[in-house]
């Protein structure tokens, strides 16, 4: 009884349980040979999904219709511009990071200006914005692929006490996001707006300011993730953000955040990100082709949402 109540109260346990199952199956199949390698790879790649997922989660918490489709374009632009600015010089690593943050804030301002001034639904506003951002990235990406500064490349690819540095960065960011969400007035505000924008406005919550900060936060996280991903993979590519569009939404939802808004969940994003990576690598180790891998990924997303969604409706 107690155990089941624990399960129902903490939806993120599901995603971790599923992750553990997939991890064990994969390890068993490879005979335990790749335990450390697989775990480290999972932590690294999950970390990127976690960083963009947290931003997307804040936006989704704002309620129905709130979703940021400009995430991939922002990642690409920030990776491209930051590497161009740093120009392989170690001294400019922090300047590059500042540029990424500034770029994120700019995209966030653009997104929310469209949403607010033109009253466009966020899906269309962030989509239009992403077209503009992507164009800028294409324009800026002319020429050779620029390598990241050496210290930055080393930092993103090495690990501390067996844990990849990227995962540590994501962990710190998640901890900050958790404090912001659970312990700060801002977190209460976005949950209140997600549950009922009208009621939130009536209680005197600065709805517009809060929504603006949320869209800016999401863009900044996407931008920082682009900066890290470009440094990790040794250069920016125009399609480097593409897979993170669906991924950022999928990890939020599988992680137990209510899609209707007003209820969010950070540990779940970790569970879901690890799960998504491990499923793909499990299917790879079993030697499935690309087609089957896609089909199974889709069916697993639907199965998880079927299990998790029913739980929410009974509450």
């Amino acid at each position, binding site marked *: 009884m107690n155990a089941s109540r624990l399960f129902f109260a903490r939806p993120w346990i599901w995603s971790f349980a599923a992750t553990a199952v997939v991890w064990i199956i994969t390890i068993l199949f490879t005979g335990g040979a790749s335990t450390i390698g697989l775990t480290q790879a999972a932590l690294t790649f999950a970390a990127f999904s976690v960083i963009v997922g947290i931003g997307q989660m804040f936006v989704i918490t704002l309620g129905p219709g709130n979703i940021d489709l400009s995430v991939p374009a922002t990642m690409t632009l920030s990776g491209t511009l930051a590497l161009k600015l740093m120009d392989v010089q170690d001294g400019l690593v922090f300047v590059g990071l500042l540029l990424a943050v500034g770029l994120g804030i700019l995209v966030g301002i653009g997104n929310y200006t469209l949403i607010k001034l033109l009253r466009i639904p966020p899906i269309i506003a962030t989509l239009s914005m992403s077209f503009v951002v992507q164009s800028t990235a294409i324009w800026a990406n002319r020429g050779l692929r620029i390598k990241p500064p050496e210290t930055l490349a080393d930092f993103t690819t090495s690990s501390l006490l067996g844990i990849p540095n990227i995962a540590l960065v994501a962990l710190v960011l998640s901890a900050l996001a958790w404090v912001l969400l659970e312990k700060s007035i801002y977190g209460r505000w976005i949950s209140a707006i997600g549950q009922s924008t009208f009621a939130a406005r009536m209680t005197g919550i600065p709805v517009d300011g809060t929504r603006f900060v949320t869209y800016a936060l999401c863009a900044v996280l996407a931008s920082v993730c682009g900066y890290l991903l470009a440094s990790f993979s040794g250069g920016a590519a125009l399609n480097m953000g593409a897979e993170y569009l669906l991924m950022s939404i999928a990890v939020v939802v599988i992680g137990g955040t209510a899609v209707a808004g007003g209820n969010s969940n950070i540990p779940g994003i970790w569970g879901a990100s690890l799960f998504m990576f491990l499923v793909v690598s499990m299917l790879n180790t079993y030697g499935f082709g690309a087609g089957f891998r896609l*089909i199974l990924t889709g069916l697993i997303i639907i199965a998880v949402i079927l299990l998790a969604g029913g739980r929410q409706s009974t509450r």
Partner: protein
Amino acid sequence: MKLSSSTIRLIIPAASLALLLAAVFYMQPRAMSYTGLNLLFNLAVPIALATIAQMLIMAVNDLDLSMGTFVSFCACVAATLLQTSPATGILIFLGAIAVYAAIGVVIHVRQLPSIVVTLGMSFVWGGLAVLMLPSPGGSAPVWARWLMTAKPPIVPMAIVASILIAAVTHFIVMRSSFGVVVRGVGGNDRSVERAGWSVIRLRAATYALAGFFAVLSGIALVGLTTSADANIALRYTLLSIAGVILGGGEFVGGKVSPIGAVIGALTLTLAGSFLSFMRISPDWQIGAQGAILVVVLALRLALNRLETREKTQ
């Protein structure tokens, strides 16, 4: 003369299409001909069909993020099985439509967010498309090719087809009793349920109909391109949503307009041609498309304000 609010809703999409068309004619007078119009609007037919499918889903307050991959899948089936053994191809299409109906039922029964379920389905359709056609290829069924390249007198095929699509779906969605209850589900599903309709059945039927139009879109696309590949229509997900919104539809409340949706699809197609006539550098073409989207929506906001002001007076 007093205009109804649904007419006002149609003015902006129609006006922006006319404006864009005038701009294209101004820059390239040779486009003002039978062949020119056909070339400008040829690719609009599959987009219009996909937009109609998306509009049906949006009429019941859902959103289909798998539209692009599903149309790609249909295109792959049309270019392979439908051409070699039509019976199997048709069976697969019927099965796909049944899957769409099942998705509608699942979403309704379990009260799931449609965005996530269709997101999952987009992986499934994408995977199936890769299995059908691992590398680009196949060939169009002769009749689909004939239909899409037909040259009716005076008015080009693309325009005839668009008008036909708009008329048929206008009848289904706006004039038939089925369409009225479907939009009712979008407006207030509880009251539709209380009135004695089965919302599950309605949602299943709506999804099935959407699946049907998406299948037509895939076939039309193959008829135009003569071959398919697994990623052929990925942009259709976003194009179809943008088309519905451009055409005056709303995300919630069952407010949709089939004629508007077709016009929206035509506008989006034309925007692409417009930009290449403008000689905008390829780097900025996507960005300019985004800008056009924003301008049209800003116009619509202005008109919506006018509409509400009239109501309050």
